[in-house]
């Protein structure tokens, strides 16, 4: 049997890094092939080469046994290779159908869009691959999980036989992940090949036939999913055992460090997002906020950070009312924030790693004679952070946009935690991180708690909430419907509450 894709001896270097180092990688027809590796291992680069976004320094690509030259995405598409990027490529105000057919529009007479055919074709693919999408809705109205299905539809509409999914589940809720897997299995049954990148070992084991592990640009090995387990995979990736279990020892004092009372605000679309939300965060605790995405988590974080105007309620820090203060003041008062949208809120892509690390502290900590930035001190600090947090970068002066997603997140975490804040707002802090980095960030969160900080952990990943939290709060339609100590509840109960099945 010939392989659908064969990549032979691929090498790709960037200034200072060898992203792919003599990689041999092959995928069979109608196979679901997992690609694993730490942050910066070279997964995205390898797939970008396959999709024609990067040109390899050396090496060959064979599609169906024939050597091909892929110099751009259009070549890849012609060869039946489709890719769903980590960041979606959809036009928000266009409808699903319009996004799918864009660039390949069917027409009636060469001029007018053939609306009927568009709708028919796209609806047909939806049905065939069990992708449930309202195809006439504008994309901006759709939750991320559905947007991803649109991306898949787009690739299929362009005739993809091989579909590359780069960390497709990092933005999905557990339910959405299950739906994605059903669609992927459907694709396989239809003879399509899928390359699946993820950091979640459990998922990779559940969906893939074979798994290839990369480490620092090299192939560690390819194993059959049926013959391996999480332990072996983690060891292949990191070279040691991974521990995800932490002791819980929360002690809630008299006064909460953060008290939210009756928070009310509107979403970007002008509809109520928070409806009288009450929540107390104690010192020395990790309080997990569980909920299906889109129930007000984003707005909750923004309200606490002063990034969204409140229509009611108050925010108190250590008993002091900070409802009307600027985000800057809140940061200075010790509220740290790991935002869920790294690119929009956490980093400045065209700043260096150093600049991103001192961002926010530049006014006090790194100021010399009250005006200029003390670059010597900033440099010392960033070098320390790069070492402490094992940020893989050629140096502090490298622009952060050139770092892999996981390493960008490490920069954010390093910056926020270095301020030794009494309150940490962590929104999806391990999204897109590999197992090693996830363990690291989680350990740091626990460490912050042990030092007396209150940590508000907003996560779409119930496993994460379970692993870390002392208490779990469930958010549903803009208010907290229950707060439970973790040892007094279970996943079933929380799951039910998340779905709106309150027991009152």
């Amino acid at each position, binding site marked *: 049997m010939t392989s659908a894709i064969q990549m032979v001896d691929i090498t790709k270097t960037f200034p200072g890094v060898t992203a792919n180092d003599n990689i041999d990688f092959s995928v069979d027809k109608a196979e679901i092939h997992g690609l694993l590796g730490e942050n910066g291992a070279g997964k995205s680069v390898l797939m970008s080469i396959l999709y024609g*976004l990067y040109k390899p320094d050396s090496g060959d690509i064979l599609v169906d046994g024939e050597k091909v030259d892929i110099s751009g*995405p*259009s070549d890849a*598409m012609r060869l039946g290779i489709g890719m769903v990027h980590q960041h979606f*490529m*959809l*036009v*928000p*105000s*266009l409808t699903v159908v*319009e*996004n799918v*057919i*864009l*660039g*390949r*529009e069917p*027409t009636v007479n060469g*001029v*007018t*869009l053939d609306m009927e055919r568009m709708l028919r074709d796209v609806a047909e693919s939806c049905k065939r691959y069990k992708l449930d999408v309202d195809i006439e809705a504008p994309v901006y109205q759709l939750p991320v999980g559905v947007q991803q299905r649109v991306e898949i539809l*787009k690739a299929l509409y362009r005739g993809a036989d091989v579909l590359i999914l780069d960390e497709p589940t990092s933005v999905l809720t557990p339910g959405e992940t299950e739906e994605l897997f059903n669609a992927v299995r459907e694709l396989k049954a239809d003879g399509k090949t899928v390359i699946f990148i993820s950091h979640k070992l459990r998922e990779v084991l559940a969906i893939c036939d074979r798994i290839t592990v990369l480490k620092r640009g090299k192939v560690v090995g390819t194993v059959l999913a049926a013959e391996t387990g999480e332990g072996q995979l983690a060891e292949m990736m990191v070279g040691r055992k991974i521990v995800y279990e932490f002791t819980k020892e929360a002690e809630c004092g008299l006064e909460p460090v953060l008290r939210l009372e009756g928070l009310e605000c509107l979403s970007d679309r002008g509809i109520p997002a928070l409806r009288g939300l009450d929540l107390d965060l104690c010192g020395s605790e990790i309080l997990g906020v569980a909920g299906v995405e889109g129930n007000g988590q984003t707005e909750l974080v923004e309200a606490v950070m002063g990034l969204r105007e409140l229509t009611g309620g108050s925010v108190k820090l250590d008993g002091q009312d900070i409802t009307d203060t600027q985000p800057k003041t809140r940061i200075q008062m010790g509220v740290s924030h790991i935002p869920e949208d790294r690119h929009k809120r956490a980093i400045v892509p065209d700043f260096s790693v150093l600049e991103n690390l001192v961002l926010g502290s530049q006014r006090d900590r790194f100021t010399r004679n009250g005006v200029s930035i003390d670059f010597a001190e900033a440099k010392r600090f960033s070098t320390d952070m790069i070492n402490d947090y094992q940020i893989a970068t050629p140096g502090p002066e490298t622009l952060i946009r050139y770092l892999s997603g996981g390493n960008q997140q490490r920069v954010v975490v390093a910056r926020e935690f270095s301020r030794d804040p009494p309150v940490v707002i962590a929104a999806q802090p391990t999204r897109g991180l590999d197992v090693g980095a996830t363990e690291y960030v989680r350990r740091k969160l626990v460490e912050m708690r042990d030092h007396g900080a209150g940590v508000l952990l907003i996560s779409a990943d119930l496993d994460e909430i379970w692993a870390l939290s002392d208490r779990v709060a469930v958010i549903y339609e803009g208010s907290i419907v229950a707060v439970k100590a973790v040892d007094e509840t279970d996943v079933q109960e929380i799951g039910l509450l998340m779905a709106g099945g309150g027991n009152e």
Partner: protein
Amino acid sequence: MVELLDLINTGLFAAAIRMATPIAYAALGGMFSERVGVMNIGLEGIMLTSAFGGVAVSYYTGSAWLGVVAAVLVGGLLGLFHAIITVKYAGDQVVSGTGINILAAGFTAYMSQVIWGTRGSSDAVNSIPDLTIPVLKQIPVLGEVFGTHSPLVYLMPIITAASYYVLFKTPLGLRIRAVGEHPTAAETAGVDVVKIKYMCIILSGMLAGIGGAFLSLSHLNVFNKGMTGGRGFIAMAAMIFGKWMPFSVFGASLLFGFADALQMRLQSLGILPPQIILAIPYVLTVAILAGVVGKAKPPSDYKPYEKE
């Protein structure tokens, strides 16, 4: 008071339609440019240069229609210039547009001097005769308002409808909308982003060019120094007020045209100092921009598009 009420008659509405026409052409032009992510502050200058070019060609050839064609070509050329600066060289859109405006003012005044020996005003030239629609003209009130106008006035709603059709019913329109909002997504879907941008910005200039031709070859039959009088900027306000949608933009232009017509009538009454009356359309522009449109969201973020 009686006098004021006398103002409100069919003549006023006919004038409103006339005054709305140049604004609407330029506003639609601005819309196409902004739809692909490029602000066109140069509408004013493009209209002015086209108004001049139209008169010059009519002067030399004796044909007003050749003048209109020339005006459109001049507009298209200036659009191309704006596109080269803003798309090819990713230059600043405001600087390029302002440059066009300053250049236009100087160039047209200088060339008037060369051709007609005066900076103020050209000789009278052949202009486009008005058209009377036979049956429509007979209908009592409607006939007076809509019955007799320049062909360019009647062309306006047709172009508006065509714009709507192109933008929302054709592959080209789909690509235009995608390019403005998310060029990278469009490019990865196989759309030639740069080509679409050029097309729309050139079209923007051509439409503004028709607006200019209307002013100098239809509304009047001469070129006057600075005769656009800020209509290019009012057009931008109409474009924003119309939320970058063809029919709404046309509607907004009618509103501004009405203000313009009203202003002219009030002047003839002499009840208020002319300075105040003259300011009415501009005050309306500022008021609308500051108030109603405060939340209008443009179809793009005006960033130059750079390929990976």
